């Protein structure tokens, strides 16, 4: 009872915040709040088995999978993938509010009668878990068995979409070296390692290009991906002018004296 009135506002606020949150990770965390609160509500409503399953399966597995994928695709990802219609946003909100209102009214108008409660059923079945099991393995046994098809499909699907078979044997160190030398012989490609990113006083992360002796940034010192994404740090402003260097050198020298 108290649990409900405490949790219900939290859940609604979390749900609204989830829809509004800009970062996907925040959404996932808010969803976790809702799910755990739900688990408590299940416990309140004589469903201890579901309480456990909700925590273990939903919060523990499903939500973690979400977070896992979020980490994979990039935490701050906000790619727009679903092509939505223009002006749909407002319509969606209005429709959603209307719908919510309708269901709420329908529910509050509905003559539900008295709550029977599960104590009788639990008693007869010798406990909640046993009651569920009896039903699951008799009345709903076929549906239960068919869910195995779902799980196999899921496994198969994940494998098809994510598993990449190696078609060529992985080149050994020796082969790679030989290939590199051949490249050098035929096209003059530098056989050694590519230059490291720049290590400077202010930056030494991978997005900072190293500077060549003439002061221009080295293209090779930065991953192509970052260049393509345009996330390479611009070092031209960090670079001091020649005169600046002279002044600085002098100051240092003078300082040393």
């Amino acid at each position: 009872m108290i649990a409900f009135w405490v949790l219900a506002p939290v859940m609604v606020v979390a749900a609204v915040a989830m829809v509004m949150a800009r970062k996907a990770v925040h959404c996932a965390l808010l969803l976790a709040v809702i799910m755990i609160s739900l688990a408590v509500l299940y416990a309140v409503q004589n469903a201890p088995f579901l309480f456990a399953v909700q925590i273990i399966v939903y919060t523990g597995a499903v939500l973690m999978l979400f977070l896992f994928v979020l980490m994979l695709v990039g935490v701050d990802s906000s790619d727009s993938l679903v092509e939505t219609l223009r002006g749909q946003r407002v319509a969606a909100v209005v429709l959603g509010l209307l719908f919510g209102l309708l269901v709420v009214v329908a529910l509050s108008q509905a003559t539900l009668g008295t709550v029977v409660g599960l104590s009788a059923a639990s008693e007869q079945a010798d406990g909640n878990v046993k009651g569920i099991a009896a039903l699951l393995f008799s009345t709903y046994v076929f549906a239960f068995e068919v869910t195995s098809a779902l799980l196999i499909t899921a496994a198969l699907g994940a494998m098809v979409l994510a598993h990449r078979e190696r078609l060529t044997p992985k080149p050994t160190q020796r082969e790679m070296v030989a290939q590199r030398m051949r490249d050098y012989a035929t096209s003059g490609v530098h056989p050694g390692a590519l230059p490291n990113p720049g290590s400077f006083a202010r930056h030494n992360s991978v997005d900072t290009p190293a500077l060549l002796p003439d002061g221009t940034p080295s293209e090779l010192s930065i991953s192509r991906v970052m260049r393509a994404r345009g996330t390479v740090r611009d070092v031209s402003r960090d670079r001091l002018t020649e005169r600046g260097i002279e002044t600085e050198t002098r100051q240092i020298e003078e300082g040393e004296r």
Partner: protein
Amino acid sequence: MSATPFLILSALLFGVGAVGVLVRRNAIVVFMCVELMLNAANLAFVTFSRQHGNFDGQIAAFFVMVVAAAEVVVGLAIIMTIFRTRRSASVDDASLLKY
């Protein structure tokens, strides 16, 4: 306790989830909103189960969880594929990245 407050809460969550699906554009967030809707349905199932005094509703909630787990796997696999494709669309060969 009467079932009505639980049901209204469930309807609210469901509605918020539905709006979220329509409003958000990030596929993962959209999918999370769908999960919210499924959870709302589960709350209704459990509440009605108590209302009617039989376990069928709880069984339903259990099935929904199983189904949702499978759905999440498939859905996230599809979303992952798309994300990878899109990301690499600007870089034509992932295997030629810096070694």
